[in-house]
């Protein structure tokens, strides 16, 4: 860096020399020059063609004194590290791209995957840089870069307390969805490999539509035992939609490491960014993880099973390498890192060692599971799932059930004796997909809703029955309203059902009721007391009494009693319901679901303290 490139904070004023540099970039450069670790800021250069502004930055690092004396850390991070910032035309709506020198050691982790002949891009922030820029400004980006460089020098990018940083794979086109816990549970000390079903979707032809994912989106399912007799049921595919989307199934090969020659587990304790592009690099990566033997065995078995397949056989298969790290991964208690790839095969030859078939690193996404849902909801993942029964799968009931299911606390049983009808969609928790519109009307509400809940990885048993009939039958009552449940939630808005529940001597479960009144201006939650005293019949009477004493409530509840009307839902068809917008139902359903989640998960009901 030449001395005449030196710029101080004062230099970056808007003057004639800076007219080519956008004002906002000039402001950012002035701030950057003030950073205590910025030793030198180069002359900004504007790319005439793209409008981007490039500027070099020399960052002085606070290294231990003995490293400063030799000018670098033992792992090669320089006491003064050069970096480059490229400000896009859209700055500050978009953050500048930050790159390191080309020969920066990529094994120091937190490097965005990229070609080896390009300058590495440090992953300085676990989030969106554009948002960080908006939130905290250019100084925050520079601070992150400075901390990143220090951590690289001090070998802190991978911190045992925080956890092992998995290889970055968050910007890849192909996505493999899996239940990581299931795969990890297969791993033993001896190394091995297993095949699983791999169900995938992808565009059958290239599309310019940016709204469509360009890679393979596949989900690893159950384990399969592959032999010639099941080939046709596993390797199959079809097309649908426009542009045509290929959907099909193939296999995912999962391989894991064994032991070293000395009998100790093979630990992959060096970080290397993703570089796999073909089978050769895949095998090298597998060798690094200690699972090359398992990979070779798995591919050989696959090749022998597929030998003799006809021309035109072309499928993506998934390969998942498992690396045993020296300590747990970030956000996980397991040290097993799963690294998925997609291999395009069109013949047995493409599985061979010398094949030039493309291997693409794939992003990894957790499959939908109760732990994932609980994690996203900020709930304790180890809490036992409460068993509860919901009666009524209409608008308020479907929304409550789905809110709780999305937190991993779905009802175990759903009771409703109605069918789905198009007008339900106006306020129902379910949405009309193309296929649901055709087939969904054949289903009862309970079955349709339970089907969606099953997709949320939770068991929910639908019962197409009138709960009043169930209560007449002791055996059915035990089956549909099991005593081990913590509650029955009544969302039917039916006076008759409330009465049946309140008067039933067979029902020992406490009943909770959710209902809306006066065009959803009033929402009511009833929670029966211990041993069902008082019951919902008593409680609703008390509510009416309270409402009578309150002028506002009285007016809404009793003077607009015709808010439930017969609404035409088709020629010659009507339905007694309220004309209310979906948002108002959702508003009440959301808060009611939160209340139920609280009392259910904290087991207040069992203690009788709510």
């Amino acid at each position: 860096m030449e001395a005449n490139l030196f710029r101080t904070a004062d230099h970056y004023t808007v003057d004639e020399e800076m007219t080519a540099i956008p004002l906002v970039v000039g402001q950012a450069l002035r701030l950057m020059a003030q950073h205590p670790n910025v030793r030198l800021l180069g002359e900004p250069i504007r790319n005439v063609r793209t409008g981007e502004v490039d500027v070099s930055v020399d960052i002085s690092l606070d290294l231990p004194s003995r490293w400063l004396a030799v000018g670098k850390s033992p792992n090669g991070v320089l006491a003064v590290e050069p970096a480059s910032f490229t400000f896009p035309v859209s700055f500050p709506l978009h953050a500048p791209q930050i790159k390191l020198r080309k020969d920066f050691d990529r094994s120091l982790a937190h490097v965005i995957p990229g070609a080896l002949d390009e300058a590495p891009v440090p992953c300085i922030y676990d989030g969106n840089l554009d948002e960080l820029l908006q939130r905290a400004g250019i100084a925050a980006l520079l601070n992150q870069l400075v901390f990143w460089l220090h951590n690289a020098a001090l070998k802190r990018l991978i911190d045992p307390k925080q956890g092992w940083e998995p290889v970055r794979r968050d910007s890849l086109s192909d996505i493999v969805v899996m239940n990581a816990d299931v795969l990890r549970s297969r791993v033993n000390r001896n190394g091995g490999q297993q095949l699983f079903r791999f169900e995938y979707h992808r565009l059958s032809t290239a599309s310019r539509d940016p709204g469509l994912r360009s890679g393979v989106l596949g989900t690893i399912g159950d384990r399969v035992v592959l032999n010639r007799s099941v080939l046709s049921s596993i390797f199959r595919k079809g097309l649908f939609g426009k542009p045509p989307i290929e959907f099909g199934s193939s296999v995912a090969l999962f391989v894991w490491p064994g032991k070293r020659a000395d009998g100790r587990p093979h630990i992959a304790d060096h970080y290397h960014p993703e570089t796999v592009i073909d089978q050769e690099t895949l095998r090298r990566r597998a060798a690094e993880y200690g699972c090359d033997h398992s990979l070779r065995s798995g591919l050989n078995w696959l090749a022998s099973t597929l030998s003799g397949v006809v021309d035109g056989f072309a499928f993506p298969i998934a390969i998942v390498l498992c690396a045993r790290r020296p300590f747990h991964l970030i956000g996980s208690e397991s040290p097993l890192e799963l690294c998925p790839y997609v291999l395009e095969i069109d013949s047995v030859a493409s599985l061979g060692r010398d094949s030039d078939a493309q291997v693409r690193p794939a992003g990894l996404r957790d499959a939908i599971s109760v732990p994932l849902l609980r994690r996203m909801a900020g709930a304790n993942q180890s809490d036992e799932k409460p068993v509860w029964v919901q009666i009524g799968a209409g608008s308020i009931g479907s929304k409550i059930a789905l809110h709780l299911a999305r937190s991993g606390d779905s009802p175990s049983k759903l009771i409703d004796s109605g069918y789905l009808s198009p007008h339900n969609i106006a306020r129902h928790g379910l949405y009309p997909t193309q296929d649901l519109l055709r087939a969904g009307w054949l289903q009862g509400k309970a079955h349709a809703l339970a089907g969606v809940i099953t997709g949320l990885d939770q068991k929910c048993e639908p019962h197409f029955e009138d709960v009043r009939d169930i209560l007449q039958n002791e055996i059915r009552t035990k089956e549909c309203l099991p005593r081990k449940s913590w509650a029955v939630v009544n969302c039917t808005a039916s006076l008759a059902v409330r009465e049946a529940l309140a008067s039933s001597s067979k029902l020992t479960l406490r009943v909770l009721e959710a209902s809306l009144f006066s065009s959803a201006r009033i929402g009511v939650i009833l929670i029966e007391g211990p041993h069902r005293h008082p019951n919902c019949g008593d409680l609703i009477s008390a509510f009416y009494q309270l409402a009578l004493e309150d002028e506002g409530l009285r007016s809404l509840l009793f003077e607009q009693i015709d808010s439930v009307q017969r609404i035409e839902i088709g020629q010659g068809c009507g339905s007694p319901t309220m004309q209310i917008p979906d948002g108002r139902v959702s508003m009440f359903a959301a808060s009611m679901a939160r209340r139920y989640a609280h009392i259910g998960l904290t087991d207040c009901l069992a203690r009788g303290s709510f």
Partner: protein
Amino acid sequence: MTATVSFFPVGNGDTTLVRFASGHTLLIDVNIRGAADDPDDDTPDVATELRKRLSRDEKGRLYVDAFLLSHPDADHCRRLVEHFHLGPPEDFPQHDTDKILIRELWSSPIVFRRATKTHILCDDAKALQTEARRRVKKFRDTGSLAEGDRILILGEDVDGKTDDLSAILVKVDGAIHSINGEYDSTMNITLLAPLPISDDESEEDALSKNESSVILRIGFVSGDQESTYFFLTGGDAEVGIWERLWKKHAKTPEALQYDMLLTAHHCSWHALSWDSWRDLGEQAMVSQDARNALSQALDGAFLIASSKPIKDDGCDPPSTRARREYEDIAKKVKGSFRCVGEYPSESDPEPMEFTITEDGPRLVTRAMRAPVIIGSGAIGGQPLSHG
């Protein structure tokens, strides 16, 4: 735990907190300026920053294991009485302001001196002198001391006045391995000064506050005992003391080696020269012996000035000429010179902190605080929302 050294931005003054790997804390001097209490004043709130870094004992009291007053000048003990508890530990106020308990007091023998025309003490220094005498008396009365009463006398007094204090006395060139009565294997401290009165020095000169400064070479011993890094700190010791130290250690200069140096007297020219910088300017001569004493920098050493920002304005301290000398010393070992008052910026100085790593002291990186500029021209940070 990693050892740390924190230099607080107190203008021309010293406040240095040393925390050893054992967790023991040694506070050297305090200069807490009253202006910091004014919310409209930019003076750093050092009292708050210091308290953030201290631990509390089982009674909820903030404490330092040891407090050293390098010499009784106001800029080394300002507002001590207000922020620290002085007196018997049993009198520690229960419902008062959040005062800091000094478990063990480290003091030069100057505390035994009566005030003279040249030996004038500020109120804080007088209070500390009283406290030191209280602790010494208690030792003489009881023969042992407990936490809050402990005292260590750094250097012998004249005329055998400290001969009966051998249990609480450290002689020059002696080592300190204990703090607050506990042996600490992570520290290795050598007392280099105050030096005994020399033949050609009057007692009055020797007792001038600057010349009586305690000079310590504080060693930080690594957990595996394989490496030790040194911090040399000497209050306001001036050129004569450094000359004598060099003469004494010229054949064993390793006794003066350091990885961190708190440049004496806030980067004063008078630590390096007998000449007046104001009067002679560039003609002022450096004392080679004093410079030698202060030049025993080890590879990559940090030389630190606890002073206001250093300007080329003829002021002393801090002296821009002294800075050049220290920068030259640093350059020879690929080290660096740092001014606390300029860190991370002159307009917004913050405590300058070092961690003592297995490869030497390392400056703790400070994040830059700067306004956010967004497309709309609005300034200021924004909270995150969820969509």
